[in-house]
Each structure stands twice: as C-alpha cells, then as structure tokens.
C-alpha cells in the first residue's frame, strides 16, 4: 500500500511541523548545555546523539533504526539462560 500524497504535498503539509520539532530538539540540547552539572558521560546522552545521526541518514527505515537505538538487545538464547522451558 502506498501513500496517496506526493512528496511535494507531504513537504508543504509538514514543513513547519518538522521545523518546529527540530527546533525543540536543538533547544533541548542547549538547555542541557546551560544547566549546571555534567551529564556528558550519561549513556542516555550517547543514545540521543546516535539517534540524531540515524535520523539524518538516507535510508527508508529511519524510524525503525531510531527505535533500535533506544532498545535493549535481544539474546536468542534467553530461554536457556533463564531456564524457562518452552511448551
């Protein structure tokens, strides 16, 4: 199933909204910079920067990749590790 709108229509409709969201992100980083204390070593900061990078890469699944940046890893051997017997 495709999106009935053209790229030009999506851009006209969403330009101001996207602009506003980017500004919010920029202002939030400024706020972190201005506030006292240092969180640069907090792993969440690295996640935020990584997500920003992923969001600006020219792929078709940016949203999925951003989600994975903020996800704990999955270990397919978890059932053995946790001793949970499958049915």
């Amino acid at each position, binding site marked *: *199933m*495709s*999106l*009935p*709108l053209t790229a030009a229509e999506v851009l006209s*409709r969403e330009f101001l909204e996207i602009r506003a969201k980017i500004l919010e992100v920029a202002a939030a980083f400024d706020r972190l910079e201005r506030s006292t204390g240092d969180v640069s070593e907090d792993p969440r900061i690295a996640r935020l920067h990584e997500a920003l990078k992923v969001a600006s890469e020219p792929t078709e*699944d940016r*949203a*999925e990749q951003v*989600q*994975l940046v*903020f*996800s*704990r*890893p*999955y*270990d*397919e051997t*978890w*059932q053995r590790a*946790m*001793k*949970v*017997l*499958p*049915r």
Partner: protein
Amino acid sequence: MDYFDPHIHMVSRITDDYETLAKMGCVGLSEPAFWAGFDRGTVDGFRDYFRQLTEVEPKRAAQYGIQHYCWLCINAKEAENVNLSREVIAMIPEFLDKPNVLGIGEIGLNKNTRNESIIFLEHLDLAAKYDQQILIHTPHLEDKYQGTRMILDMLTGDSRLDRSRVLVDHVEEHTVRHVLEEGFWAGMTLYPVTKCTPQRACDIIEMYGPERLMVNSAGDWGPSKPTAVPDFILEMRRRRHSEATIRRIVYENPLTFFSQSQSFRFRSRETEEVASKLG
C-alpha cells in the same frame, strides 16, 4: 465512521467518555484486564475486578449503544508475584462463560523477567485448555524490542496455538514486522509520548498494508486519549486513503479477529435496525 476500539481500559474512564466515544462513532470495544495503578494483594481483589469487567462495564457502555467485551488475566506487572498469579489463573475459569468474555489477556511481559515468562506460559496453558483467544501486551520503551522477541519465541514454540487467534498489541516500527511475519495479528496503540502516534500508525499501514493490523487507544490511567482512533481516521483521510481501507482497519479487522471467539455476538447498527423493524 463506525469503528471498534480493540483495546481500551474503560474502568479508568468516566461515563462522559462513553458518551464522547459514541458520538465519535464507536460502536463496540474490547477491554483487556490490566494493572490497576497499584498491586492487588489477593485473588478476591481480582475476582471483584473481573465482576466489574463482566457485569458493570457492559451496562455502562450499553447506555450509549456501545457493545462491551473483555479479556481476563493477571497482567505482567503483577505476574512477578508467582503465587498470587497462580491463584488468579485458577480462578479465571469461573468467568469464562460470561457473555462478554473474548479470551485471555492482556498477558505479556513488563520487565522481561523469568517470573513474568513463567506466568505468561501458564496463561498459554489456560488458553489452550479452554480454547480461548489471546491478547498480548508488549513492554514499553527500551524493553519493547527484547520483550516482543521473547514473547514471539514463547508463542511460536507452542504448537497448540492457532496464530490467527492471537493479537500482539502495542507494536511499533521495530516490532511490527516480526509479529506479522509469524502470522499473528498486530495492534498499534495510539498513545502520547511512549507508544505510537496516529501519524506513525498511518506510516506503518502504508509500509505493511492493512492485513491483520488494528489500531487502539489504550485509554487507561496514564495520560492517554480515548478518542485516538478517530484521530487516526482523520489522519488517514488527510492523506487521501480510501474509506474502504480505513474502515477495514478500524472496523472490519477487529470484527474478523474477534469473531473467532465463541462469545462474540456483535450486532452492527444495520442488523440492530433490521431486528427492531422485525420487532
């Protein structure tokens, strides 16, 4: 447009919300059993909650012409207490014959622990024993991906299950594909901040198509919006998707899925009209 909300916690909403939902086109809904905002201490606490779901809410909904269905279980958060969970699971069959009970749910994982997994599997035993449909809660935020994959491992490892009778809820961009590829139904929860927005739900529909996908509002104790499904309908219309596609996602898909429950006796507005004419 008439729509069906497949996942909404009406016990946490006021009666005015039923009126608003009715005005927006909601003709039916299904309410999974969930966490009450605090851990309940006894099996009797759950027995009372199940009476609320099977006796009180259907009446409150019917005042506004909304058909109310529900699902029973002990949710993943309280499943950490294995002894209490087992008592609740043993008590659930008392309610399985109630006319609005669709199955077992919302079971799932919360922090992806061993205890949660054990109780999840014991709920699968209950569903298999009583031939019940299953509705599944997937964890939030950073736990969602790992938890969804763990849930899928447990589901696909169980040969007793009919995958077309299982709905995996709260899917997002990184989990929807896994759920659909394994043959399960998937629900997108439209929820501010922590889950999916109407816009992103439309994106996911455009990428995966309308097959086996539904949208719901959750409408629970948290900052949620019970009218999120109409927001989704509006966004789909603004993108010029056909009325037939929208109706399929918000009405026909839920009816197709829920019709597999023995107790689902949904009557559309059209059949109600015919029935009242025939007297």
